[in-house]
């Protein structure tokens, strides 16, 4: 203990004698780190400002290509505050929105296409971080195809009284998708109905 202490004291003495006053100051590490963090944050802010517009545009382009994949005959679309309207010959043919679910491995983003009678046209998993080979089966047509034509009352797992069969070994992922779609659907139907009035 005592020996350690002495070595420690010696070290401090040595560093304060051989370097300048600032480097020996006990607050110097704190000040140095503060400066580094300040420079770092400023740099990141600059880059963020430069890339923000492009990132948002990329995200929008991804959504629109999904919209076209679901409503193949759409010729026009209109982005609303938190959903999209698809048109053909100036007639509304459907709506689409993104639902977010909390899966087994993180957030699952689901793109939902709706017909004008508020039944589901199609759902697509935009992104997920589920377990490969198990949870990732939510992206397959055998799972997402089950949603076609359902109204929001039927969107729950069959053991909960709905019409969706969970994937064996991936109940949490299946439930996350199903619940997210139902919840978002219920909200969005209200929003769309009040907007259309």
């Amino acid at each position, binding site marked *: 203990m005592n020996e350690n202490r002495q070595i420690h004291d010696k070290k401090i003495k040595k560093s304060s004698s051989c370097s300048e006053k600032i*480097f020996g100051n006990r607050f*110097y*590490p*704190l000040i*140095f*780190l503060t400066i*580094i*963090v300040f420079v*770092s944050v400023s*740099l*990141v802010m600059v*880059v*963020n400002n430069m*890339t923000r517009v*492009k*990132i948002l545009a*990329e995200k929008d382009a*991804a959504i629109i290509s999904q919209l076209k994949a679901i409503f193949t005959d759409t010729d026009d679309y209109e982005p609303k505050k938190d959903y999209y309207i698809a048109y053909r010959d100036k007639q509304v043919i459907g709506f689409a929105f993104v639902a977010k679910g909390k899966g087994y491995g993180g957030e699952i983003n689901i793109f939902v296409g709706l017909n004008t009678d508020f039944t589901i046209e199609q759902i697509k998993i935009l*992104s997920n*971080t589920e377990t*490969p*080979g198990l949870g990732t089966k939510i992206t397959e047509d055998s799972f997402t195809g089950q949603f076609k034509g359902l109204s929001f009352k039927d969107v729950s797992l069959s053991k909960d009284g709905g019409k969706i069969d969970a994937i064996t070994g991936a109940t949490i992922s299946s439930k996350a998708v199903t619940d997210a779609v139902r919840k978002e659907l219920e909200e969005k139907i209200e929003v769309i109905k009040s907007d259309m009035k």
Partner: protein
Amino acid sequence: MMPEETKNTNSRRFAKEILKGLVIANPVFVLVLGLCPTLAVTVSIDNALGMSAGVIFVLLGSNLIISMIRKITPQLARIPVYIVVIATFVTILSLVFEAYLPPLHESLGIYLPLIVVNCIILGRAEAFASKNTILLSIADAIGIGVGFALSMIIVSFFREILGTGKLTVFGKTLFSIPVLSSDPLAFFIMPPGAFLVLGLLLALFRWLGVLNNE
């Protein structure tokens, strides 16, 4: 006479540091560092290339800055300083990838931000850049970075061919193996396949004796 001589030895050391990272101190096959991305993102050559480009960029940036500030960095706060420097480069990289290469950003997923805690980068900062000149630190970053890229490409080459039966680089299929591509060994794309391929490669490199002179 004198300056020419030092210049000569300098450039020789520069080349030595680059070569060191490729074989003698290859980060994956010899130092066995940075295995998390090596195992996780090597499902395709494209991913391996994207990840390697990211790691080389961050390694160059962090080695450069850390070597520049090595004389004024307080010993007590050095690890936080290194992490902040590395995290800055990773955040910039992540934003740039998201803006200009969204598919790559999507497929690298969480492993891109995880470069911050990649032990190759912090390891080089602590073991090399904090003790050496800027020029040598850059050489070290190039050597280790390219060494990492080579390892990533080798691992993903085997995993992609065995797991999908074909080799695709930047969306272009270079070749496909007739029987394998219709009925691929999907096991090699999965995480256990990564362990198997990496383990066999490590054994192979030992056996070849490439690493005997380490």
